[in-house]
């Protein structure tokens, strides 16, 4: 002990020999490395997920299409037609409503989902007993501007939804039972942990894939360098849809951007179709929407990819389609 205090005194008085110096250096480095390793072991859990657990509820029909001038009424009627929101949302559920609000554009420019459609869904979720309805999107332009200018944040806040900016640190790594180019991709935890996932894309033109539909809209819960998803996009989006398994797909075709998508900006490119498509199967919804747009579904790479791997060859001609007019 005396020796220790002698050393300490020497050290504090500035009399450090070369040997002591080396010892301090080595000790410091060792404890630094060991401490780091411990912290890593203790805290840095890279949590993975094998995919969202879906209840797999199917609706009264495969596809419901509601047409009418009021997007709010369209949404309400279409959801009623598929069996009502109560079929999907149970009491105490946490629901994620994922609209497309990726662009700093106004609703008239049709680059984002119509606010009325999203607001109607949020309202119905709460009416069915949902505990919490989260609304979010990983945006392409600045988050604040997108949330505000799309009009969605204000519209759903009025209905009591929890609108927030996604946290890129709160993610899980996607794992697949098969070999996938999306293996290990960071996906927002809130998108995987929610009880019900409602995907609310807008039907619009897209430069690379031809159309932005429900499967493309799922990119909005992915973190990381999302541009990378564009390489081999068909395969990646099909895998992502398989991973997230959205319970309900609501495609907003109230205003449809026919050219210069996905961001658009020119109101002359916008055509009013006044329709809302609701389906439980994202693939069928996408096929129908693409046909409505006037594009053969097989030309969309992610539809053809998903179709090729689905065990029961889904066919739009055999699907039960109900058209309502409101």
């Amino acid at each position, binding site marked *: 002990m005396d020796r220790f205090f002698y050393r300490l005194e020497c050290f504090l008085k500035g009399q450090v020999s070369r040997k002591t110096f080396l010892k301090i250096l080595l000790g410091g480095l060792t404890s630094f490395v060991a401490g780091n390793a411990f912290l890593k072991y203790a805290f840095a859990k890279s949590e993975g997920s094998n995919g969202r657990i879906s209840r797999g509820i199917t609706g009264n029909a495969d596809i419901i299409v509601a047409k009418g001038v009021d997007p709010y009424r369209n949404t309400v009627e279409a959801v009623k037609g598929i069996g009502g929101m109560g079929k999907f949302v149970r009491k105490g559920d946490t629901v994620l409503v994922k609209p497309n609000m990726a662009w700093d554009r106004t609703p008239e420019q049709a680059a984002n989902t119509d606010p009325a459609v999203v607001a109607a869904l949020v309202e119905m979720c709460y009416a069915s007993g949902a505990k919490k309805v989260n609304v979010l999107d990983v945006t392409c332009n600045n988050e604040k*501007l997108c949330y505000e*200018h799309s009009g969605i944040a204000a519209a759903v806040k009025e209905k009591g939804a929890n609108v*927030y*900016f996604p946290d890129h640190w709160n993610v899980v790594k996607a794992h697949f039972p098969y070999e996938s180019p999306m293996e290990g991709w960071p996906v927002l935890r809130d998108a995987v942990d929610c009880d019900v996932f409602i995907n609310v894309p807008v039907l619009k033109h897209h430069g690379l894939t031809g159309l932005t539909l429900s499967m493309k809209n799922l990119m909005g819960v992915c973190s990381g360098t999302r*541009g990378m998803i*564009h390489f081999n996009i068909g395969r990646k989006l099909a895998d992502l849809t398989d991973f997230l398994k959205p319970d309900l797909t609501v495609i907003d075709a109230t205003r449809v951007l026919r050219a*210069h998508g*996905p*961001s658009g900006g020119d109101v002359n490119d916008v055509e009013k179709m006044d329709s809302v498509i609701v389906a439980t199967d994202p693939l069928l919804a996408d096929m129908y929407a693409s046909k409505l747009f006037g594009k053969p579904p097989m030309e969309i790479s992610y539809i053809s990819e998903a179709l090729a791997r689905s065990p029961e060859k889904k066919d739009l001609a055999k699907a039960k389609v109900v058209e309502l007019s409101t």
Partner: protein
Amino acid sequence: MKVKKSVIFRRSSQVFFLLLFLYILWTTTYPLKGAFNADMFFKTDPNIMLAVALSERTIVAGLVLAFIIPVLTLIFGRFFCGWVCPFGTVIDAAGSLRRKKKALSDGVNARIRNIKYVLLAVSIAAAVLGHQYAWVLDPIAMMGRFISINLIPAVTGVVEKTFIFTMRDLGFRPEWLYSFYRALKGSFLGVETYVFANSAPILAMFALIMAFAAWVPRSWCRAICPLGAIYALLARYALLARTVERCTQCGMCSRDCRMGAIKDDLDYVKGECILCMDCVYTCAPGRIRFRFLPARGQGGHKTLVRQGGKGAISRADFILLMIGSILASGLKWAFKVPRKLIRPPGSQDEKAFVDKCVRCANCMKICPTKVLQPAFLESGPGGLWTPHLVNEIGYCEYNCDLCGRVCPTGAIPRLGLEEKKRAKLGLARVDRAKCIAWSAGMECLVCEEHCPVSHKAIKIDNVIVNGVVLGRPVVDEDLCIGCGICQNKCPVRPQRAIVVDPQK
């Protein structure tokens, strides 16, 4: 113990204005809903505003605000330095760190107080010759720069990282904490990345001045501050003056004066007095007062006679100064680096922009994507800390004209949203050797997807590769506005395959 009423007033005023300044800069963020516009404080600074107006030979919008404090100075004296200046407040705080103050002798005080006049004259001479150098030493600009680029990013960064560490790494993630964090992120914290390039030299300069202030109280204000020099010149003729009656020659006031304004013979230099009111309370018999228009013989200790030549600049110094400034502008020309930078919308005339910019950092603070970053020596020493666009960090948001709305001197003009959308910042160029669509035949088109121009400044060049249609990006040079979102979102690393070049 006497109640130091005036000192309490002065301190409250200092704290109030410091908090006001902090509040204004903190609310300099996207919705721009603060009660005051961020350029307000800077527009009341005659040093930078007059230098910009003089060097650019223009009337800067809001120039009239620059005359408010000079007029008040003619009445009250150099009250701004002692009662308002946020930089002075921090310097006072730094000065109070050391109990034992270093008092300088009369001779030293007289010499160092002249330095600031020389510096001011250099800046004015440069402005006459068409170069604006007032930003270099301006206290308000320096304070704004420190707060926007060092202080606020550090505070928000630490708060955010603490939350993330608690919730992600410690796994403590209760519902209430997460909701609180989200509410904070939507309002107080903001969502931008709070790291600025080249912020270390700004902090170093600030820290150096504070270190000097701890060593000798108010050393910066006494010796260097050009804004203080302007006010000191005006304060000589101020109506309010210090009077002493029946002085006992105890010398307490002289020893304690933070500005070194009271001389050994207990006379005082009126221009140096910042009305801190310390001497009023230090004077044991209480014989010091501040009065308006004191009668002749009451001012100072002896008489209120003009002190010929004292504190002014000699002819020889003036000639030296002119030679120096001509050399300085010659040096600027010699140092000029031909490389151009991408400047904020509407500021494409490099020379005019660099001269108008006072480096207050308002634009960088408010930029929602943080594409505006302080330059270091990229455009030569003359362009130090001017904002330029770094597209790897952010991009110029299409529906946003915030930078122009907070610029105090019009270096970034107020274009209005519609005109700003058409303002060309640069020109995008696809590097076909790097682009994976061109070189590797892979589908990508991320740049085309993000292009905000409504008819797309990036066109798709379709080609059939192995029976599959492949789109490759081509820039339409007429439509491209150079916003840089293509470069920002390009997934090719380490160097992006599409880059925005500054305009020729």
